[in-house]
């Protein structure tokens, strides 16, 4: 059998990207795969030929995002009743009051969760908070956790946290070939945050009970490794569109070595299946989405989420009790929180 043919006989192994102890998985972690030397250059034809990523997020934006992507330590009670670090993964702060989106498998069975934040891309994250799981969805492997205390166990006032955060984007609007930037704390990346780039290489969809198609996976050629789990996949607009969750390793049957991999992200729109999101929170997210487009000067794209936000906001029952001035004032505040930079009448500069 030729060498090339041998590579085509593949076994697929899906690997959760959690680092540390990952019971039941074929690939031991944290020892990373020596992919740089083992993966042949003539890999099997990928779903999409990767295109060079140009442009991308500006340096200032990368620094901002780096501060909003956290490392999560999953502590579990060991056999002697002592809490021990069991695994680690990544998470993304999606609200300044300390809401963090991550994978369920990152926080699964945790007796406690420690959150480490990085002050700069070249500095290791420092454990600063303790968090608790608020909501989760096992099917989609997603979880929402909330910072509840500082590292000393002192309860925190959420409204005073004012943490850097990343707005949620619209994963349904992603197109094949769109550029993605992945942030996280893979075990192979050393102690500091790692950034990899790739493109949207494909999607997997399922059908809901109402027979609507729903994206359940985004495939990407971006390099993902254990530890990336729960991190952030962002578009060039700086909005969160995916949560790195799995890699699929293609193993040559004869050689037994990996010959290729394809990363899988959970689309961020699935978050709505994780938590019953409060309408006002959805308004905030829509405004944040509009703000992201506005920053890109793409006002045409921004109009839809802006109007969706307004349509939802005005339907809130409390609105009926409010005066026009109160409504306008709250909309201004919500917009400002979401990153809108309000100008004055007669001027858009």
């Amino acid at each position, binding site marked *: 059998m030729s060498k090339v043919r041998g590579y085509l006989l593949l076994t697929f192994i899906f690997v959760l990207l959690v680092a540390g102890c990952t019971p039941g998985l074929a690939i031991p972690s944290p020892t990373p795969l020596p992919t740089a030397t083992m993966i042949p250059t003539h890999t099997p034809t990928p779903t999409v030929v990767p295109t060079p990523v140009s442009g991308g997020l500006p340096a200032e934006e990368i620094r901002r995002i780096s501060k909003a992507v956290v490392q999560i330590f999953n502590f579990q009670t060991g056999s002697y009743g002592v809490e021990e670090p069991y695994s680690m993964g990544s998470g993304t702060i999606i609200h300044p009051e300390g809401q963090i989106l991550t994978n369920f498998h990152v926080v699964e069975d945790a007796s406690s969760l420690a959150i480490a934040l990085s002050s700069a891309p070249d500095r290791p994250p420092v454990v600063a908070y303790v968090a608790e799981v608020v909501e989760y969805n096992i099917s989609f492997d997603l979880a929402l956790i909330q910072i509840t205390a500082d590292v000393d166990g002192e309860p925190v006032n959420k409204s005073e946290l004012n943490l850097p955060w990343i707005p949620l984007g619209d994963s349904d609007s992603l197109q094949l070939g769109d550029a993605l930037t992945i942030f996280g704390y893979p075990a192979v990346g050393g102690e500091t945050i790692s950034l990899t780039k790739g493109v949207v290489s494909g999607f997997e969809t399922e059908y809901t009970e109402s027979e609507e198609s729903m994206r359940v996976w985004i495939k990407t050629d971006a390099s993902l490794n254990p530890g990336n789990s729960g991190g952030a996949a962002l578009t060039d607009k700086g909005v969160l569109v995916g949560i790195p969750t799995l890699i699929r390793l293609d193993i040559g049957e004869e050689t037994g070595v990996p010959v290729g991999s394809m990363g899988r992200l959970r689309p961020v729109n699935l978050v709505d299946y994780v938590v019953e999101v409060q309408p006002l929170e959805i308004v905030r997210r829509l405004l944040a989405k509009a703000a992201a487009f506005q920053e890109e000067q793409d006002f045409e794209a921004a109009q839809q989420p802006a109007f969706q936000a307004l349509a939802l906001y005005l*339907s809130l029952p409390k609105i009926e009790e409010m005066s026009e001035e109160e409504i306008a004032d709250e909309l201004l505040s919500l917009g400002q929180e979401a990153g809108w930079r309000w100008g004055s009448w007669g001027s858009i500069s």
Partner: protein
Amino acid sequence: MGVMGVDLLRVELSLYLAKFGLYPIALFWGQAGTPFDCYPVTEGDVIFDARLVGDEMGIIFAYIGASTVTPDFILLRGEEDGWRKVWPSDPEPWRDLWKTADGDVSFAAGDLSLLRMEGSSWGVFSEEDPFFECHACAHRFFDLLWERQGDKYLPQVTLPLDAPYYDRLWEITQPSPYASLFEFLRRLRVGDEAGALELVAEVEPSLLDQAGALGLDDPAVTYMVEWGPAAEETLLFSTEDLAREFMATFIQPSEGEDWLLTDIGER
């Protein structure tokens, strides 16, 4: 980059007009608890007034420029599948009389049957204009009622649509010394001596000769009104390069009538 603020008008419970940022003025309606429907109505910067009559809604809004506010009006009709714009619709030949710069649009009746339009000549530029009407300069002012006829609003004027545009514009011009001077010189410059004579106090053809002798019938020259210590009946104006200065005096035979020239000369 900043986007403009929020302007909101509650037309009735669960029916809102909103100007949100720099996006079009839009109508939002529905049942509380379920996201509202949305219909982008028109470009515009601020909502002034809205009136819902049956299944129709008249909306008065405005565009805000660097130095002027220009009100406008739109009529919508609610249909089974949402709202539809009824007026203005293309073509609207009478809209050349819709002049609202620095003016106002208001409902002139208890329903949607009548609109009052007031505005200035700011922005109404034409080669026939004898005066340069910068925003800070003198202007003519227009006042006109628009009456609902079917799905259209038509101006309450006597001249037909095919009458010369400036004649139709003159019909809706508010009397003022400046308006009369503007129109007198314009008519003179296009050779309409009979028309110019209508704006002279007494039938005194020599005033036309006098103006001609001063070169005021030269269509290549543009003038500016000088603001100064002149009485209401007197206007000082000069060529744009200020090289020559003129004075015109007027009388108004009676309230509401056109002001008439009594004299014109160089200073």
